[in-house]
């Protein structure tokens, strides 16, 4: 029973890892917590749903195309909303991102209605491995997330774009003096963040019904994961997401499942009290 719960928690954590990394990358480059991350996840789910239901594309293709489309949309949102506010404070940008969140959510309601929808997925019986029930969606989630994280890691650590992103995040003034075009890096960051978040929307939609509030179910958990890992630290965000996933899922053994987000809130509160720099915060050097 416990092993099953931990497994489910790890898979939940993997879904959370994608937007948590997106949130942390945006924070690193633009220095504001993007509250619209939940609504972005919702839009990602609905884009794939539209392609899946109306164009009858298999979910996998629908997810890839939907995420690619949404990464362009994310750049568009940045250009329209955040770019004019570039030099403003983090609070201003946070409030703007709340606005983006409501607008996205209501566009979704306008087009798709308020009801719950779901992907057209072939039904499959869960497999039993060493007494653990593993369903198809969990395997897809694990493969997709591990692949995405591997790609993000290689991009960040071993490509010019990744070095430029880390340089801008570390010291924007010096990065500019080195000839790094910040706006170009900002656009690429939104491309990556948009893709990851939209893909997470699809994975979330495979696990539960898709409704206009699907992103809200994740937003606290995503913030908890990113803060746990130390905002701005992608590796920390992944570890934070897995931790939060397992802890939330394990908590359902003790408390009713609808209270599981309380655990995330408590994790944030405890962490901010005891270790404000995040679990891996010490590894990021401020000066």
């Amino acid at each position, binding site marked *: 029973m416990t092993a099953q719960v931990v497994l489910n928690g790890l898979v939940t954590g993997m879904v959370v890892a994608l937007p948590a990394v997106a949130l942390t990358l945006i924070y690193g480059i633009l220095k504001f917590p993007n509250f619209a991350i939940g609504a972005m996840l919702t839009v990602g789910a609905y884009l794939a749903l539209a392609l899946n239901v109306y164009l009858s594309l298999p979910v996998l293709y629908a997810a890839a195309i939907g995420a690619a489309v949404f990464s362009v949309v994310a750049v568009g949102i940045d250009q329209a909303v955040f770019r004019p506010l570039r030099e403003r404070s983090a609070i201003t940008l946070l409030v703007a991102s709340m606005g983006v969140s409501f607008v996205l959510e209501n566009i979704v309601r306008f087009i798709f209605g308020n009801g719950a929808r779901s992907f057209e997925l072939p039904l499959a019986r869960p497999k039993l491995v060493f007494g653990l029930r593993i369903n198809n969606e969990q395997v897809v989630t694990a493969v997709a997330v591990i692949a995405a994280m591997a790609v993000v890691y290689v991009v960040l650590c071993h490509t*010019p774009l990744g*070095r*430029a992103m*880390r*340089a801008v*995040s*570390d*010291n924007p*003034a*010096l*990065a*500019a*003096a*080195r*000839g*790094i*075009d910040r706006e170009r890096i900002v656009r690429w960051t939104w491309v990556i963040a948009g893709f990851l978040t939209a893909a997470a929307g699809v994975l979330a939609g495979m696990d539960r019904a898709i409704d206009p509030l699907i992103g809200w179910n994740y937003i606290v958990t995503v913030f908890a994961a990113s803060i746990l890992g130390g905002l701005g630290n992608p590796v920390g965000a992944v570890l934070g997401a897995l931790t939060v996933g397992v802890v939330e899922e394990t908590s359902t053994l003790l408390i009713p499942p609808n209270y599981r987000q309380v655990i995330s809130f408590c994790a944030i509160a405890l962490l901010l009290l005891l270790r404000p720099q995040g679990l891996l915060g010490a590894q*990021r*050097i*401020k*000066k």
Partner: protein
Amino acid sequence: MNIHGSVVSAREIVLSTEGVAAGYDGDDIISDISVAVEQGSIFTVIGPNGSGKSTFIKVLAGLLPARTGEIHLGAMSIARLSAPQRVAAGLAYVPQEFNVFANLTVGENLRVSTEFLERKRRASAEQRERVLAMFPEVAGRLGLRAGYLSGGQRQMLAFACAMMAAPTVLLLDEPSAGLSPKFVAEIFDKVKSVNALGVTVVMIEQNVKEALRIADIALVLVNGATRLLATPDDILTKHDLHKLYLG
């Protein structure tokens, strides 16, 4: 040696300013600064706190626009170029602080220093080898995150990063600031050895004694204006720095 004096120099001028004025929001911080830096020399700018030394070097580096006046690198006018364009043109700059990427490794710092310049300006493998040979304390720590370096090592890395672009002129903003005495001597020795390779150095310094020890010529800046332009020998023998500083 002396630019304003009677001895006419045969050496070429690599960097010059004519009537440069600059400031931040309100009035000019520096005004009417005209200097000519000779090829292969060490040119130091000294002066009391708030005299405009940092403003002057920021104008040279392209981080602050000159309100009036001209700046030439060789025959080329650079007053309108951005900071990275000036690096590409051969004018490298080492800021006083926050001069390395603390969360990137030493090796990545070296790489990033020229990676995003125009293609033909990127450091060649040979240039990288030359820089590593010049800075053994940096070469031995390529995999270490720059934030874990000591203050002196960090300054050396910042210095090495600037050298990756194979500059003709190197701008140093208070290289000895905040360093222990042991490192101060080391960093000035390094400035001297880089200069010996033919790189012209323009250096701002608080540490007047050490700066005058290695400099060929010094500009004394007081209240944003040129107070004196003379060789270190002249400054130490014929003038009184305290009187100069007090105006």
